[in-house]
């Protein structure tokens, strides 16, 4: 073991220090560190200052953003796959003559791509995708025109909607992985700081809390999205109707739900982790 020395009183026979006779001090210098603590007994995790406020902020944020980060990466992956389809379609257009079979194969490939990329989404991602689809209530004659002004305004609003979803997705792709790494690091530090005899129990508590917290965040985001988005359904409560309003409410609900249920999930997970550990370590076959 590193930094270990035989137990006993300093200066007793059997413990010899190599002290240079020419120096002023006649004893071995201690290792640098805070006064009053024995540096040899302190591990790296004990030297890390961990603010409870920072720990809670990171853990709650990760519960909330982990599922959204997952979805954001799938959105990015779809974008790349779609570029391949775009290239194939451009090749067909360059050639000039497109047969019915080729057209159908391309459209089927595109439909399969959309379907397959939606399968691994979190419940929130699936719900948000559904909400962004237009047409649950087809605009009545003139309604769309009244709302948008012209066909150009419709196309412009389509572009704006894509830009805002792109920005949101970018935030999750950048912040999400950082939060996941931070959360795992903090959880590991908490485990390592526990006394040796409590470390396994603390690990069971903290890592179960992490897992259940993320799962709770995913469920809460979906529930929050469904609850608030329904308020934005056409003609129900909010007078300004439309997919954007419903999508915005889904996002807000998702964030609130993910935050609340994620926190509850983490606390429940911690308790469950401890209970399972206690059960497993005290269980005896009779």
């Amino acid at each position, binding site marked *: 073991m590193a930094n270990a020395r035989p137990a006993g009183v300093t200066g007793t026979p059997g413990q010899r220090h190599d002290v240079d006779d020419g120096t002023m001090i006649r004893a071995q210098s201690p290792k640098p560190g805070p006064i009053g603590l024995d540096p040899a007994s302190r591990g790296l995790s004990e030297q890390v200052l961990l603010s409870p406020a920072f720990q809670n902020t990171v853990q709650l944020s990760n519960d909330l953003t982990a599922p959204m980060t997952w979805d954001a990466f799938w959105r990015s992956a779809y974008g790349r796959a779609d570029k391949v389809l775009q290239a194939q379609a451009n090749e067909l257009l360059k050639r000039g003559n*497109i047969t019915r079979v080729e057209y159908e194969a391309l459209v089927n490939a595109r439909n399969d791509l*959309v379907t397959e990329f*939606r399968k691994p989404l979190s419940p929130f991602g699936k719900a948000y995708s559904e909400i*962004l*689809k*237009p047409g649950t209530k087809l605009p009545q004659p003139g309604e769309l*025109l009244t709302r948008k002004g*012209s*066909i150009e305004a*419709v196309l412009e609003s389509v572009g704006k909607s894509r830009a805002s979803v792109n920005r949101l997705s970018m935030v999750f792709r950048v912040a999400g992985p950082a939060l996941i790494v931070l959360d795992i690091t903090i959880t590991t530090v908490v485990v390592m700081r526990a006394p040796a005899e409590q470390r396994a129990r603390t690990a069971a508590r903290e890592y179960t809390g992490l897992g259940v917290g993320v799962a709770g965040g995913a469920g809460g985001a979906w529930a929050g999205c469904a609850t608030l988005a329904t308020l934005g359904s056409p003609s129900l409560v909010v007078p300004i109707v439309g997919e954007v309003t419903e999508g915005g409410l889904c996002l807000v609900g998702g964030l609130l739900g993910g935050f609340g249920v994620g926190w509850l999930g983490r606390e429940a997970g911690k308790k469950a982790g401890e209970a399972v550990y206690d059960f497993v370590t005290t269980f005896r076959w009779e």
Partner: protein
Amino acid sequence: MISRYFERLAARVQGRRPGPPAVSADAAGLGIGGNLLAWSEVRRLEAYKRDAYVGDVLCLAILGAGDRVFEITEASPGWEAAGDAIERFLPGSMAHAEWMVRLVAATPGQSVAIYPLA
């Protein structure tokens, strides 16, 4: 109002969200929901993709007489048949297969003019 909210919430949770109304097309014109748009009234057709977070939805905006604007999507029952009918009954419009391929090839934000051709 509260009971209507819970009905809608239950429908959403069970995946029973109402889909878009059907589109039909024949020699008389385009039937969108309960509205009929004669072919002679069609002034402009523009196809585009709407962002659906992961994936997109193919859409068609139809500008009719009196500045009426309709929007149909690939989720509308009768979408394929309507595309074929546009090619058949609206002389001077782009072929169905061609505009669909152009739409697949389009980058996000681009639209495809189907009628009149640019």
